[in-house]
């Protein structure tokens, strides 16, 4: 197995909470609290979770929008924190990001060509105005957009078109890895389908690897090879999507899948039973002790609030962070053997 293109080891990112005239630090938002995973070359790795899970922060820390509080990130084997100015510049070209909200990821006061020219100018891609314009036309073609839109402003474009421009912008520097933060969540379903196919096509054509962040479980199931489920800054389940969805073990994963809005009878049938009590998602400033899901978990035991669960590998590559993982896994396997069906 070749080395993964991205390795995240024990990533920690806290944000200080400041108050008062002197900006004193009064607390920490534990956005990301010891997260580890790998992304293989050419893979789509999904990161799922709800608000406060830290999934966006993971992406933004990886692309160096934020500095790490702890842990290490390796890209193509190189330690990101130990980079020189040269390698930092190289890194920025290799790793790019597409943001969630097409309304705000493009500057409303800049024309499309101006937005797309920026990365070219910064890295000296294209020596003259003419050349850059030519490159931009090619980029737009690549994302299936007519160059008619070059001089238009984002307000004249639809959500799907704006996202295509955002993708073109990320591709302008010729990256090999893209962090996609809910890139289709703000779009209609038919537009989303087109964009997903664009992502898949670009991945093949340009040999890209993706970190795909979303709260849409059906989407993760459809396109990601492997995925991790995050809750309040930590990963609680990780593995190949097939296995993850066939045998979800952690109560939070089950609750998440059970809550997913679906459109067909078949999908309803494969849903696991949700295992949560009615309640809100706690704030990452003061996460619950031990397993952060325990206050909402319908099968929580006393040890769940006392200690953090350690990872248990219940099948090849499928890890669960739950004190009762073995018990749950055992009951799942029995069910799978006797009824031959998936989940409940």
């Amino acid at each position, binding site marked *: 197995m070749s080395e993964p293109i991205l390795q995240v080891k024990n990533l920690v990112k806290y944000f200080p909470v400041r108050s008062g*005239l002197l*900006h004193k630090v009064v607390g920490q938002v534990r956005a990301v609290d010891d997260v580890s995973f790998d992304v293989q070359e050419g893979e789509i790795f999904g990161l799922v979770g709800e608000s406060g899970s830290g999934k966006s922060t993971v992406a*933004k820390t990886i*692309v*160096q*929008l934020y500095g790490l509080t702890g842990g290490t990130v390796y890209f193509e084997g190189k330690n990101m924190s130990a980079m020189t100015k040269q390698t930092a*510049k190289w890194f*920025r*070209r290799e790793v*790019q*990001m597409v*943001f*969630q*909200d*097409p*309304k*705000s*990821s*493009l*500057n*409303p*006061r*800049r*024309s499309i*060509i*101006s*937005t797309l020219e*920026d*990365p070219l100018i*910064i*890295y000296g891609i294209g020596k003259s105005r003419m050349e850059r314009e030519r490159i931009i*036309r*090619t980029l737009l*073609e690549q994302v*299936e957009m*007519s*160059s*008619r839109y*070059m*001089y*238009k*402003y*984002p*307000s*004249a*474009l*639809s*959500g799907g078109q704006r996202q295509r421009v*955002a993708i073109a*912008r990320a591709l302008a*520097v010729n990256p090999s890895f893209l962090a996609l933060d809910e890139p289709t969540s703000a779009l209609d379903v038919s537009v989303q389908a087109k964009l997903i196919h664009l992502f898949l096509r670009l991945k093949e054509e340009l040999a890209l690897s993706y970190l795909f962040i979303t709260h849409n479980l059906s989407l993760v199931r459809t396109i990601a090879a492997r995925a991790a489920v995050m809750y309040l800054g930590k990963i609680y389940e990780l593995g190949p999507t097939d296995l993850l969805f066939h045998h979800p073990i952690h109560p939070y994963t089950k609750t998440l899948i059970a809550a997913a809005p679906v459109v067909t009878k078949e999908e309803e049938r494969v849903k696991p039973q949700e295992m949560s009590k009615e309640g809100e998602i706690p704030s990452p400033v003061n996460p619950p002790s031990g397993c952060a899901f325990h206050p909402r978990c319908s099968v929580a035991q006393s040890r769940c609030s006392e200690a953090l669960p350690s990872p248990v590998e219940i099948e090849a590559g499928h890890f669960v962070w739950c004190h009762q993982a073995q018990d749950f896994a055992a009951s799942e396997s029995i069910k799978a053997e006797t009824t031959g069906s998936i989940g409940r």
Partner: protein
Amino acid sequence: MSSNQRVAPTPDETRWAAFKDRLGRGWYKFRRNRISLVGGAMVLLFVFLASFAHYVTPYPRHAGAYTDFLNAFNPPSTAHWFGTDSLGADVLTRIIFGSQISFMLAGVVLGISVPFGVFLGLLSGYIGGKTETVIMRITDIFLALPALVMALAICAAFTPSIDKAMLAVASIWWTWHCRLVNGITRSIKTEEFVQASRVLGASHLRIIFKDILPNCASPIIVKITLDAGFVILVGAALSFLGLGAQPPAEDLGTMISIGSKYLPERWWMTVFPSLAIFFIILGFNLLGDGLRDALAVEEGG
């Protein structure tokens, strides 16, 4: 997608066509509001008159030092629409020439204070932290003091003249723009397109000037338009108190001041310059409102 490039781009593609389209839309939004059209027309008229004062006034020689005591204190007539003043000069002519000074005052004041204020606002908003706190608190102190009183104090400290007045007003006017731009910068800073620029590796300067500043442009333009009226008013007030333009190069405020001595019998010497100020400011205000609508970014989606 085909990759054959057309030799001559279609109208849609050229920058000029896109620009014309935007202009058209902006004009459409602007002219929907009848009142702002009136304001715009007024401002255009006044600026035109002031620019070509020499050619449009009935008695251009009456501007500046001119005396004709035989004709002094004439009420409004067909020869002198607004009457004549204490020195015999045509009031209408002097108003138009006086407005030149007012516009010049506005131009210089805003020309100095706006760039300075915008620059500080961008800096403090972008850097944030303690730098921002320091700059904004200084701004707050300036803002807490009434503009007119400050200008008065500064003016009175030196020999009164129009340039001192301009400097005085400019020295406190930058604060409004600083605050405005600081606020905008702070909110834009967290927008995703700024984050995207950072991830792309843009330098801070590039982000400030290419991402943040364009978003400040509209509010700044609107504010300048609305400011123009107010700056003219402050300038006129200073002149009225004798601290600005001095005779014989009078501006509207000085004219009112001199004319007020002859109220109420010779009312035209005060009323007409006052009306002039009123309409100039009104024009700018109406125009400013209309511009605000026309320049508003369309929310699509």
